[in-house]
């Protein structure tokens, strides 16, 4: 409507339906440029919120990363990231995030398969989706509590295994307060998230394709190998990247479960916020910037994979 109006204005013609507009010529005379600048103002509250609580703090981190004690430009903070203990913390974080993302993605995709193409419909399907939504939102401190009760030194699982099967988990070097323990806890929210992302993807695979494959003499295995998996792959990989970011930024679970026993990068930053002994303001900015850079790369990857996905799975 607006567009037509503008075209008519420039062509100095009026279509029939605009008779009323002629009767009240006021809107016609308003210059389009003034309308645009006014429309922009509608975005102001949103842009202010974004600027004040996201962009400005991010810029603070960015500029702080390249500034020394006197406010001069320096690369020392970035160079400071390459200390052994900081690199180790980054490595632990990357390891935990990558492994839980891949394992969680596989588990989640299999479960999504089971409740869509695997034939577990009806109650099982809706039950899994509800439970997965809850579990994906259930992280942080209560999750750590639950895993300590289950797999702590005197937890239910080690005690059960010792008394009934004679397996001594803790005697064999297992502990929930380690990187492995952290991964087990992270998986609890990782694979349900995968289920939630993959169920629509599996639903988007058309049954007709299966029939077409069968008509051409393809087996079920052929269908998955040549049709199903190639189509789902971008969305699977995209979701895996999402899970990676999900675990990489996790702080509360790590704090409550392993505390100081495992140094993930979020905990190193939290210590810098508190201003502990190793406090170095410049370095703490660089630590935060490092996390943002890694996440930004993974999100760019995700957006790219998402583009490929929508090409095939558009409803």
């Amino acid at each position, binding site marked *: 409507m607006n567009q037509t109006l503008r075209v008519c204005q420039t062509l100095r013609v009026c279509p029939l339906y605009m008779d009323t507009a002629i009767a009240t010529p006021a809107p016609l005379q308003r210059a389009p440029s003034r309308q645009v600048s006014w429309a922009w103002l509608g975005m102001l509250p949103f842009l202010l919120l974004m600027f004040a609580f996201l962009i400005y703090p991010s810029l603070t981190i960015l500029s702080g990363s390249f500034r020394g004690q006197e406010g001069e430009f320096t690369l020392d903070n970035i160079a400071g990231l390459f200390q052994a203990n900081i690199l180790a913390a980054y490595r632990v974080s990357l390891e935990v995030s990558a492994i839980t993302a891949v394992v969680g993605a596989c588990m989640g995709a299999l479960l999504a398969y089971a409740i869509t193409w695997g034939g577990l419909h009806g109650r099982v399907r809706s039950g899994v989706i509800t439970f997965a939504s809850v579990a994906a939102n259930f992280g942080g401190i209560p999750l750590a509590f639950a895993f300590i009760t289950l797999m702590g030194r005197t937890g239910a699982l080690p005690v059960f295994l010792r008394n009934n099967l004679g397996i001594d988990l803790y005697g064999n070097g297992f502990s929930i307060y380690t990187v492995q323990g952290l991964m087990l806890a992270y998986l609890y929210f990782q694979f349900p998230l995968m289920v939630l992302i993959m169920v629509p993807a599996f639903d988007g695979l058309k049954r007709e394709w299966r029939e077409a494959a069968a008509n051409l003499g393809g087996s*079920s295995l052929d269908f998955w190998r040549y049709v199903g998996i190639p189509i789902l792959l971008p969305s699977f990989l995209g979701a895996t990247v999402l899970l990676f970011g999900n675990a990489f930024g996790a702080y509360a679970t790590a704090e409550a479960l392993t505390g100081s026993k495992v140094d993930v990068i979020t905990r190193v930053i939290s210590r810098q916020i508190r201003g502990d002994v190793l406090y170095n303001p410049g370095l703490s900015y660089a630590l935060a910037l490092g996390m943002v850079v890694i996440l930004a790369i993974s999100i760019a990857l995700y957006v790219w994979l998402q583009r490929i996905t929508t090409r095939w799975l558009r409803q």
Partner: protein
Amino acid sequence: MATPSASSSSRRKPSLTRIFAWAIFIVCAAYLIVPLLTQFDYSLRAKRDQVGFTAYTNVLAIPDPAKAVTVETSPPKVALSLPKFYSSLLFSCLMAVLTIVVNTAIIVPTAYWVQYRLPRFKPAMEFFTVLPFAIPGIVLTFGLLRTYSGPPFNLTNTELGTVVMLVGAYSILVMPYTYRAVDTGLRAIDIRTLTEAARSLGAGWPVVILRVILPNLRVAVLSAALLTFAIAIGEFTFVNFLFPDERAFGSYLAAIGRNKIFEPAALTIISFLMVWAAVLLIQRLGRGGNQTQVTGIR
């Protein structure tokens, strides 16, 4: 395996597929349920050789006023004589409500405006709504504290300022979900006709948004609100640094975890039930849709 029976769907699936599917289901379900079951079992054992709800009553019971902890919630200063469970939950609920109000007040008009007048802004909105994913909670906390705990904007030395920071941070966190829910809601209604009808009847913009658009977005706004609740209530990363006095529910949970044995188990079950309630309500609202693929920060 190659029987072309796909049209009659899964009932006649080869049994191998179904056995495989059931096996996956059982393993995954066990992973999700066993930790909760053992935690529930543990929470019932607060009294030696006895199964009971002692841990729950320890947490939930309202003791006689003499023993109660007095906590002041802000911004409206209300002095409460309640166990810390309630006062911290109330504080977190208050923060959630403030976030919901701020977020709805900003996102609904913005999404509407972009859809109605500034469709060219859509790619920019897509970009903005992805940004919060790049800034993890702990980094945003750090950035906010470094930005607003000194001149020129010193927010951390007043109660109100800290609340503003927390609500602002939560708004950023839930913004992608709120925006997407509202945007989907807007696509489902004919905003152009509605707007033009309302405008031609003499309605001003506030009336259009409040009395025409907003009622049509009830479901989207309510789901976003419930989600904000689910995220804000147990949230730990921000409150741990912005309110170190263990005023919020998340830090209360952490404190109980450090000091008590059976109560953390009871609180795990209670938090799980709260998230469950929020998710069920969202699903009810969405009428069968599974649009809750969302996570808070951990």
